[in-house]
């Protein structure tokens, strides 16, 4: 790669509150993310996952608490972060190349080319988004986010609309790019398996707070056939559905909120 600083950023979310009108969405949420860490956020629809990402991206103001990036309070737009949305949000009137170049200085076209090549769409740079498949569109969105060398990548259910095979492929792509560049990542997903497959830690948001903070101690590349993998998935699902897991897996530390600021070794 080039001489850019490819380090991730440390994100500290402290007692963050957010309300719309009179409805409190986040009620004092604490979350500490180390630089280069990959965190997955799960939770029921409407629990505030997208809201949290938008706050970290600096697209909306918080109503209380603080967000710090490497110790510096976030003010306005988060310039170190790039966001990838569920619906892609490519500009339909721009070709692939120009979509990836969005917000990029005009003398850095070759970096756009590099990013497009990395997501495997070199042949399609002159196509309009309407000519691409769903998975290809999300690849373009990924290239568009990565071309800025963000130290924080925010992924809001980017794979939600894709079929199972394309999802797997995209998960691998995201994981490999993350391993290569070591940016900090926050992935919102409704798919617990996806969360376990890709992240260092799975966070569950419930009632505006963090209800589960589960480190995933599995070696990469992760094997879904690994029994421990299914244990994690089942345990987290059970917790989301608010029922006790039938079996009690001793290997899973019960990490409700107290383990929040513990370092995780994997």
């Amino acid at each position, binding site marked *: 790669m080039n001489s850019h600083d490819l380090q991730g950023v440390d994100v500290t979310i402290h007692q963050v509150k957010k309300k719309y009108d009179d409805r409190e969405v986040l009620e004092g949420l604490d979350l500490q993310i180390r630089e280069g860490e990959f965190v997955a956020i799960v939770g029921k629809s409407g629990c505030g996952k997208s809201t949290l990402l938008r706050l970290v*991206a600096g*697209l909306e103001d918080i109503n209380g608490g603080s967000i710090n990036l490497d110790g510096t309070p976030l003010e306005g*737009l988060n*310039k170190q972060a*790039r*966001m990838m*949305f569920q*619906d892609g*949000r490519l*500009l*339909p*009137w*721009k*070709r692939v190349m120009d979509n990836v170049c*969005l*917000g990029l200085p005009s003398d850095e076209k070759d970096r756009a080319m590099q990013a497009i090549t990395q997501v495997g769409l070199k042949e399609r740079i002159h196509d*309009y*988004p*309407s000519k691409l498949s769903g998975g290809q569109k999300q690849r373009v969105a990924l290239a*568009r986010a990565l071309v*800025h060398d963000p130290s924080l990548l925010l992924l809001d259910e980017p794979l939600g609309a894709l079929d199972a095979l394309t999802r797997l492929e995209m998960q691998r792509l995201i994981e490999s790019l993350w391993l290569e560049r070591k940016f900090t990542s926050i992935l919102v997903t409704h798919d617990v398996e996806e969360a376990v497959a890709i992240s260092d830690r799975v966070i569950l948001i419930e009632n505006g707070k963090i209800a589960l903070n589960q480190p995933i101690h599995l070696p990469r590349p992760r094997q879904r056939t690994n029994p421990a993998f299914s244990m994690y998935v089942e345990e987290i699902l059970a917790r989301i559905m608010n029922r006790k897991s039938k079996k009690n897996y001793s290997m899973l530390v019960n990490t409700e909120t107290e383990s929040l600021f513990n370092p995780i070794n994997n």
Partner: protein
Amino acid sequence: MKGNRKGPLEKFVPWFIPFFIIAAWQLLSWSGAIPERILPAPSQIIQAGIDLTITGELSEHMGISLWRALVGFLIGGIAGFVFGLLNGVFRFADLFFDTSIQMLRNIPHLALIPLVIMWFGIGETSKVFLVALGVLFPVYINTYHGIKSIDKKLIEMGKAYGLNGKELFFQIILPGAMSSILVGIRFSLGVMWLTLIVAETISAQSGIGYMAMNAREFMQMDVIVLSIIIYALFGKISDMIAKYFEGKLLKWNN
């Protein structure tokens, strides 16, 4: 949409009916079934066109009509576009202007002809003014609506990617509103010709509408029909130009 290459048959089929009608018309005129004072034969109309071209009258009238259409269209179109942009983008401008513009829009602009003649006489100003007024509203409404209906999520995305106000406007807002703006422009071209025809027929010393009214006094049926055909051609050609730009500007949309 279809590809650019059409088979020879596809190219000619749309012209079968017009060709057949003109041929039948010519034959019926020759046979005397259509009396000359009701409707002259196509050949007579062509002859009238040739005669008027030789005297230079035709090009003079066509030129002045085109000039009025163009100038009126530019003034009204630019004003409508600018107000549409302003009110679409800035909340305050919207509050300040929109209600007034919506009220003015409900006055049929052709009803203003007597007033406009009192103000400007029957000179160029009155015709240009009426055309501009007619063109302004469709362009305004569609520009305004196009901007208001842009996907807010795209704008949020643009902000998240660090675009400044100017970049947001040129890369997201304007292209996002473009198809609606073009609908307004195509519609306003129709209004433009209609306004011009009425204005030139009622009060003018030159132009195609004047040529037709003048011919009526001398019972020149062929010139009257020629004028009507020229208006139809103008309308068709301007629509084709608009369609061409639509194809260029909305290439991504097919």
